[in-house]
């Protein structure tokens, strides 16, 4: 019973600290809300539409205008400029005003009528991979459809029926089925992990701040005495308010994703919640480990902040971990966010059974062992005055 009383006593002291420290209050309660709001607004639309491209139509014919109209009708591309020369078009590309340039040669229409294969040249700026992917697939699809139409007309003109002509030009019909995120929504793909990363940053920084400030301002004896000198109870009482707030924010993120942004949760919500709690406590363990190791608030904030920010890259959401160098793949295992983002994708997006995500939960739980590993060092740091007031 005395442990619970001591935890509660430390908890109350921490809540009092939060309320009376404006920086603590703002960082714990206001900034995470701003962060979530930002990502909701950023990714609410979710799709890349109307990327500006330029056209150099040397043919200026019915056929060239038809293919341009078909390209312009795609969702991802907008023919924003029609220019006379490639020099003009290149200048538009170099100044970042267009993502691609289409070039249609003088003989485009004549070649089509004379049965000579011709082409639509597309120069895409690879400086933005996300834009290039959209432009490439939309333009390619439009040109292919246009080309099929030309072949279809020609075969019909040679005496084949429409159906026979269609079978000749498309002997293999392929069907694509996208099992998760079928609308290929960038928001569903990127927003969740961005928001989780935000929560992770605040969890790490707030935990380091909560513990580190007791050393920095030499108030650790007062903190420990609030828990009758029981270091374990004092630590749990201190970490609990942050964990509760961050757990609530994770629920807010889930609400935003599944209700406001309309994303499906195809798997187990319970697993997501359990995973989110383990994610928060795993990062709190890392934060305690860092403070114990450095016993310096500012250095801990630098190291912890850097570690938390890097987690996004190594979660593999932007560039898949499986395609990284071997040691980068190994490094990715040092970030709890990597496991949680896998768990989230599996449960929310792919809807795999709950059992398949147990390994991720175990991996997250392993990070909790950092506290017992560093415990002796931690006890010494919070009890010995020589570790206080380090700048």
């Amino acid at each position: 019973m005395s442990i619970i009383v001591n935890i509660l006593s430390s908890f109350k002291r921490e809540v009092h600290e939060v309320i009376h420290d404006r920086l603590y209050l703002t960082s714990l309660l206001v900034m995470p809300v701003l962060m979530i709001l930002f990502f909701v607004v950023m990714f609410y639309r979710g799709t890349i539409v109307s990327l500006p491209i330029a056209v150099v139509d040397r043919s200026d014919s019915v056929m060239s205008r038809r293919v341009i109209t078909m390209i312009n009708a795609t969702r991802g591309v907008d023919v924003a400029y029609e220019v006379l020369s490639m020099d003009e078009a290149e200048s538009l590309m170099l100044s970042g005003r267009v993502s691609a340039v289409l070039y249609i040669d003088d003989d485009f229409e004549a070649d089509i009528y004379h049965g000579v294969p011709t082409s639509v040249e597309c120069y895409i700026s690879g400086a933005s991979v996300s834009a290039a992917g959209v432009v490439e697939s939309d333009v390619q699809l439009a040109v292919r459809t246009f080309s099929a139409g030309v072949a279809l007309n020609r075969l019909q003109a040679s005496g084949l029926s429409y159906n026979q002509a269609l079978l000749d030009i498309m002997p293999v019909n392929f069907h694509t089925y996208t099992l998760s995120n079928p609308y290929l929504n960038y928001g569903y793909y990127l927003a969740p992990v961005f928001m989780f990363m935000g929560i992770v940053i605040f969890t790490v920084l707030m935990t380091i701040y909560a513990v580190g400030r007791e050393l920095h301002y030499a108030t650790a004896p007062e903190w420990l005495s609030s828990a009758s000198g029981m270091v374990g109870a004092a630590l749990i009482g201190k970490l609990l308010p942050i964990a509760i707030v961050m757990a609530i924010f994770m629920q807010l993120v889930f609400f935003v994703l599944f209700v406001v942004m309309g994303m499906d949760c195809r798997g187990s919500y319970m697993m997501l919640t359990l995973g989110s709690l383990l994610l928060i406590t795993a990062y709190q363990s890392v934060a305690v480990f860092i403070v114990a190791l450095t016993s310096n608030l500012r250095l801990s904030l630098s190291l912890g902040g850097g570690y938390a920010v890097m987690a996004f890259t190594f979660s593999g959401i932007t560039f898949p971990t499986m395609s990284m160098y071997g040691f980068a793949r190994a490094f990715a295992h040092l970030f709890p966010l990597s496991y949680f983002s896998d768990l989230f994708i599996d449960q929310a997006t792919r809807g795999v059974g709950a059992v398949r995500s147990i390994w991720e939960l175990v991996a997250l739980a392993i990070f909790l062992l950092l506290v017992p590993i560093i415990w002796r060092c931690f006890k010494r740091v919070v009890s010995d005055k020589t570790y206080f007031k380090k700048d």
Partner: protein
Amino acid sequence: MGRRNIFISTIKNELSAVFGDAGAMLLIVFAILIYTVVYSVAYGREVVTDVVIGVVNEDNTPSSRRLIDGLRSGPNTTVGYNPISTEDAEDMFYNNDIYGVVYIPSGYERSLLDGCQADVAVVLDGSHLLVYRQVLQQAVADILATGANVEVERLVSNNMSAADITSLVQPVVYDGHVMYNPSLGYGSFVMPSILIVIIQQTLFIGLALINVRRRDRDHIILNITLWTSVKITLAKIIVYIIIYGISLTIILGVVWPIFGFPYAGQTLDVVVMMTMYIIAATSLGLSLSHLFRRREAPFLLLLWSSVPILLLAGLSLPKEAFPGWLYAIGELLPSSIAVRAFVEIGTMGASLSDTSSELLRLTLLGAIYLFLAIVVEKYCSVSKKIDN
């Protein structure tokens, strides 16, 4: 210290503030190098290749095996498994053993030989768009190539001439060329933006750290003239131009070539652009630094904003994907303009005149923030050492 030497003494003080404080040195000198190397290692492989897919081949004929050979030879995909049934394939898919499934139903070859349309299904995973795109591209290319071969055979059997067949198989070809980053490497795409944002973030946090420390130690608010304020601000900016200039020389001269990131910039153009950027970012950082009263505050309040700032530039996620007003807010940050200017000059090899609109805005922004920094310095300058 005399008034005439204020410029030199400020440079000395600022250098000692950076190099005499482990925290400031870690942020302003080492963080940019560490982050650049770590992110380059993560993104250094550039392209997603050999994505493992499974093929359910219910047809099991020479024609279906020919299609599988195409998928196996890549480069985007490799056929890791040949599950016997769709249930097996589903199991492997959900276990992350495979990232796509090509399903060839029985009767595939029969349909081709009978002059009918054969069906092939491709099951994709949209939860990772880069992997999705690679599998889709490879599957589409191989299936279309197979289709084209069959089309030729059918047209030959219809007694068409070679010239007619050539004009019918692909009358209009899509001829795509990717410029500046031909392999669409992810690292080449994202690293320039990351580098620019790291410069700004380390400057903002580092300058705030130094300023709070100065306040803690030398809590005397001086009443300096506007001209003195100009000299102090310019001296500080020069210090950061030198420090970041050295870091950027190492990064663009060593890290970039090691990882093979494209660099087509003219040295002088890059120097001019980066100098303008560092002036703007340092000026804003100096102005903001006076908002903080405690050394831990910049970490707690600014660190999370790195990714939002990166996104606001409208390059890693094109500006067409988010609201215009949000993009407009981002334009108030030097990094947003500098990201685009650096990609254009550094990656695409544009000249200063090609990027004149970006550079003009960067100059304007820099001038406004420089004026702000000078005013703030005049009214908030804190020092013991400068006798004014």
